């Protein structure tokens, strides 16, 4: 007879493996993402996957205090995404004529955007 703890143990191990795969794919998008908003989106997704990891660890170890940590991580992730969105907005248009020649290079784009404002 399979005990109920064994069912949950196997399922949480499988969930950890699947989440690890999702984490690897998302990290690949952070590294390879062609533009800054792609990387911001992937970082947002990373906090979501980290919340999932913490919830699975809470099931696996039985410490329910981990759920509070997951909630606060969700709050931090939301605030980080909002701040990054404001940063993208304040950096200015990447296609505007004044910064068009430097549009492909990170530092020059930032400097040109700031000068334009």
């Amino acid at each position, binding site marked *: 007879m399979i005990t*109920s*703890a064994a*069912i*949950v143990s*196997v*399922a*949480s191990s*499988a*969930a*950890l493996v*699947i*989440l690890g*795969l*999702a*984490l690897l*794919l*998302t990290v*690949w*998008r952070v590294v390879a993402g062609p*533009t800054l*908003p*792609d990387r*911001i*989106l*992937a970082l*947002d*997704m990373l906090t*979501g*996957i980290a*919340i*999932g990891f913490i*919830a*699975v660890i*809470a*099931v696996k170890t039985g410490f*329910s205090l*981990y*759920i*509070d940590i*997951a*909630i606060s991580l*969700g*709050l931090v992730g*939301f605030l980080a*995404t*909002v701040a*990054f*969105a*404001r940063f*993208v*907005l304040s*950096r*200015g*248009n*990447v*296609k*505007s004529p004044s910064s068009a020649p430097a549009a492909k290079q990170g530092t020059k784009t930032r400097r040109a955007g700031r000068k334009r404002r």
Partner: protein
Amino acid sequence: MMDYIVAIATALLLILGALFALSAAIGLVRLPDLYTRMHSASKAGTVGSGLLLFAAGLYSEDPAILARAIAGFIFLLLTAPVSAHLLARAAHSSGYDLGGISVLDDIQKR
């Protein structure tokens, strides 16, 4: 008996939530441009982590912890559209293009 029902429900929720997160990650890698990737990450990703939180709350068999887990789920459901909309709006107004296969851009009226 009750033990088994809770364990099987928790196991199903864990696997389902992890698969949702995996499908969001696959969409993040495979979809062609920022806005379609955002569609994948902000919907499937939110549901994935929310289901995992709900599984953790269910397995504890404590109403206080279950309430906290559901509050976390609702918080995720409320904040994910807000942050996705802010990021999409900021990216569009600072000139990041839609992908080549897009047929309509309602903000630019074309």
